[in-house]
């Protein structure tokens, strides 16, 4: 037996210190991980352990100018089952089957499916959800959710739009004011084990959602309802393809009503009025949702004479008393352009020419302006640009290029043909010309309403540019008053009010099909316009003159809404033209 020697001891000590050094090295390494990498790894670990469930924010409502709720939220429930937590599957199946009115087979399939969470039914009314919750069944989860609800159904459908599956705005105001309406979703952070089971004793972290802001719009439900009623009536009576009515405040561009029949049910926006093949369904839906006031252009026809008159008066190429002679046609270069009245209007002043809606008068005036001047005014009045209305998908103007415009093109443009604008563009431009000459931006959005104290934070109003002198605007109003009072627009007269306006009747392209668009644009009071309305009837049958079918619609509208808007009666033409003092 050998005795251990000195060098053995020395080496054992070496081994010990070597091992100790390595141990301490690892202790340092562990410390480095636990102190300097702690944030990194514990953050990653937390991401791993926490499951994020988002809580939908309540979407802001849309309110009319008087606070009537146009778009609201309904609480609905989503019923789900968590397979691993279900203790009594048969009872769960029985209860869900009865409460939800589903077949046993459907419920059984959901309950018996091995998954972390299985949705049985969504959009369940709150009462049903509460009833199911009251059973206290293990593994059955009732989550509350919001669903958009439109109390007025199809009212202003093309203005309001609707929301998609995730409550996001899809069309119209719901889409353009998304950032205000949507709010900020909250989150529930649950701690789970590796299989996704929630660890109940750890509780959950909640980040509360922030509800969306209520949007206040300038629309007045009463006016909208009445306008819609009138539009439907005239559409039915004239068997027209569609009818649009726009009511706005010429002073600031606030839109009080915008109708484009046929409207659709906002609470059921995916159902078409008639069956169509699946392939064409999306196109048919898009057509149904389309707002012709904004998304479509048309030839404005004689209503555009307002613009020609404004430009000519402003440029000084015509005065009210200038006389013209209408033989029923006019020759422009080598082209013969007819007047609406085949026999001709004979000798007439400019005012009378406007009252008669005489094409030769306006062609003459247009030619006096010349292409360059006319084009300059066209641009100055804002007709080349979009109006900037706060609805998505506004169509642009379709106009000749200046270099392509000859006298013939100028002549046709002068009385509203051979180019296209949207109805909102016509209304906005007319409003700007008669309001004293300031270009307005048509809009619905007024501001957002604070849910707690009901105060409204208004959206900033864009300052409009001057596009016409105040004096010319005043002269234009006087001429347009004469049109209604004594001229072609007399069906637009309203007892006790001074109304200005212009009729329009245009044959749609291609010509010769016998299809017309009839329109009337009116405003009141003539001297200090508080409200402007445009009615467009597309493809009416029978009588198609704007002065005969569209003007009465605006008359009826004004008869109701002028008193409603507290606009004082200012009498008729018996009173002096400038009798009404401007406020």
């Amino acid at each position: 037996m050998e005795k251990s020697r000195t060098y053995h001891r020395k080496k054992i000590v070496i081994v010990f210190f070597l091992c100790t050094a390595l141990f301490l090295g690892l202790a340092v390494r562990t410390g480095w991980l636990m102190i300097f990498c702690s944030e990194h790894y514990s953050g990653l670990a937390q991401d791993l352990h926490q499951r994020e469930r988002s809580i939908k924010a309540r979407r802001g409502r849309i309110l009319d100018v008087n606070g009537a709720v146009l778009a609201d939220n309904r609480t609905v429930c989503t019923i789900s089952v968590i397979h691993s937590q279900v203790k009594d599957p048969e009872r769960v199946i029985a209860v869900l089957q009865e409460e939800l009115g589903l077949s046993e087979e459907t419920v059984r399939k959901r309950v018996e499916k091995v998954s972390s969470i299985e949705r049985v039914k969504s959009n369940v009314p709150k009462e049903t959800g509460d009833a199911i919750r009251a059973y206290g069944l293990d593994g059955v989860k009732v989550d509350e959710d919001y669903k958009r609800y439109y109390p007025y159904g199809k009212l202003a459908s093309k203005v309001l739009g609707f929301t998609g599956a995730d409550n996001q705005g899809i069309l119209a105001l719901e889409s353009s004011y998304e950032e205000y309406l949507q709010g900020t979703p909250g989150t529930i952070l649950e701690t789970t084990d590796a299989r996704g089971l929630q660890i109940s004793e750890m509780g959950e972290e909640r980040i509360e959602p922030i509800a969306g802001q209520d949007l206040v719009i300038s629309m007045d439900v009463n006016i909208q309802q009445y306008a819609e009623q009138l539009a439907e009536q005239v559409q039915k009576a004239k068997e027209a393809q569609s009818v649009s009515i726009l009511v706005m405040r010429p002073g600031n561009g606030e839109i009080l009503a915008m109708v484009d029949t046929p409207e659709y049910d906002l609470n059921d926006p995916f159902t078409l009025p008639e069956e169509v093949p699946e392939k064409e369904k999306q196109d048919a839906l898009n057509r149904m949702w389309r707002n012709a006031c904004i998304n479509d252009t048309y030839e404005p026809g004689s209503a555009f004479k307002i613009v020609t008159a404004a430009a000519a008066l402003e440029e000084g190429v015509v005065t009210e008393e200038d006389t013209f002679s209408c033989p029923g046609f006019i020759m422009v270069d080598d082209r013969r352009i007819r007047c609406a009245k085949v026999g001709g209007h004979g000798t007439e002043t400019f005012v009378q020419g406007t009252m008669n809606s005489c094409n030769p008068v306006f062609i003459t005036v247009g030619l006096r302006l010349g292409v360059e001047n006319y084009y300059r005014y066209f641009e100055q009045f804002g007709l080349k640009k979009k109006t900037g209305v706060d609805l998505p998908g506004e169509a642009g103007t379709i106009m000749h290029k200046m270099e392509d415009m000859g006298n013939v093109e100028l002549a046709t443009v002068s009385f509203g043909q051979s180019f296209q604008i949207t109805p909102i563009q016509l209304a906005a431009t007319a409003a700007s010309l008669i309001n004293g000459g300031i270009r307005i931006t048509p809009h619905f959005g007024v501001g957002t309403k604070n849910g707690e104290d009901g105060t409204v934070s208004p959206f900033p109003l864009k300052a409009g540019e001057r596009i016409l002198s105040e004096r010319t605007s005043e002269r234009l109003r006087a001429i347009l008053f004469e049109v209604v009072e004594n001229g072609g627009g007399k069906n637009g007269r309203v007892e006790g009010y001074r109304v200005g306006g212009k009729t329009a009747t245009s044959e749609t392209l291609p010509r010769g099909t016998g299809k017309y668009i009839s329109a009337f644009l009116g405003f009141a009071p003539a001297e200090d316009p508080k409200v402007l309305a445009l009615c467009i009837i597309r493809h009416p049958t029978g009588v198609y003159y704007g002065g005969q079918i569209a003007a009465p619609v605006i008359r009826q509208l004004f008869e109701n809404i002028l008193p409603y808007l507290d606009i004082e009666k200012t009498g008729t033409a018996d009173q002096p033209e400038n009798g009404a003092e401007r406020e």
Partner: protein
Amino acid sequence: MAGVRNRFRKKEEHYFDYSLLFIILFLVVFGLIMIYSASAYDAADQMDNEAYYLIHQGGAAAIGIVAMIVVSWIPYHFWEKFATLAYLVSIVLILLVLTPLGYEANGARRWLKIGISVQPAEIAKLGMILFLAALICKIGRGIKTAKAFFLIMGSAGVVCLLVWQVTDNLSSAIIIGGIAFLMLFVASPDYKKFVLIVGAGLAAAAGVVYLISQSSMTEDTDFRSARIMAWLDPEAYASGKGFQVLQGLYAIGSGGLFGKGLGNSMQKLGFLPEQQNDMIFSIICEELGLFGAIAVIMIFILLIWRFMVIANNAPDLFGALIVVGVMGHIAIQVILNIAVVTNTIPNTGISLPFISYGGTSVLFLLIEMGLVMSVARGIRLKDA
């Protein structure tokens, strides 16, 4: 030394290392607590008994403590004549894994079912310590010769190769090789060749790692290269080879200075594989924090310090070599385990002595402790 002859007769003069006993008992009990903490959630779910792992480990530990006490009473020279037998039995047991007696668990065939299930590799470690201690004593002064060197490393190499190839357990093969190397280092007066071997080994390892780090992981990358790539950047292979280590790092990083408190680990809830086994150190870090982790490392330093004291005072070379072998066994295993868990070296399955779950492991470790205590008893107080 004149007193050697009558060292067993004068009992009252004999030494008993109470510090060693206390450290061992502390480690065993601490291990049981940590196993229970780490495994209860999984055990409740999978075994329907949250104390499943605790009971099994507790049973093995109880048998082990009895065995340790018994072995500590038996003079360690009693085992000298069985040294060659132990070596041969180790080899036979390893080979038995290939027979129907062997069985597979966790994708590796490492266990034998003979009444209870045992891991032959764990027995081989003890066998190797006894065999080499006896062999080196027999060689005596001839230890300096190349022949002795190759005889010792060769006989250890056979077992290493068998453990590696037959039971597909590279980690145990490395440990057995390491034990043999350390025992030979202590027994031999030479330094140069050991330094050279270690230097060459480190250089070779660095070279291999460099080569692998230059390639990228593809479908046909073999699994050891893949492990090395995952080691270099575990987050890039988070769902594959890097998964276990990264989950361990999550646990370690979550611990902070004082930990989440005993029982509050999140990573043990099914996220971290082998949480009561090879990765238990990361649960200790998560629950007990840096203080807990350093305390565990300090306990192991105390343990090997006791081994050093006993080895240096052992009555003879055989006793000293046994203690050196045990010291090497525990030190290598602790170092490799913590190094793996902290992603200091590439992942390889090594358990943490006394703490990780594993019945054979704790049983044979405690028997080794019994041997060390038996050597300690041989120390005469006068010499100590």
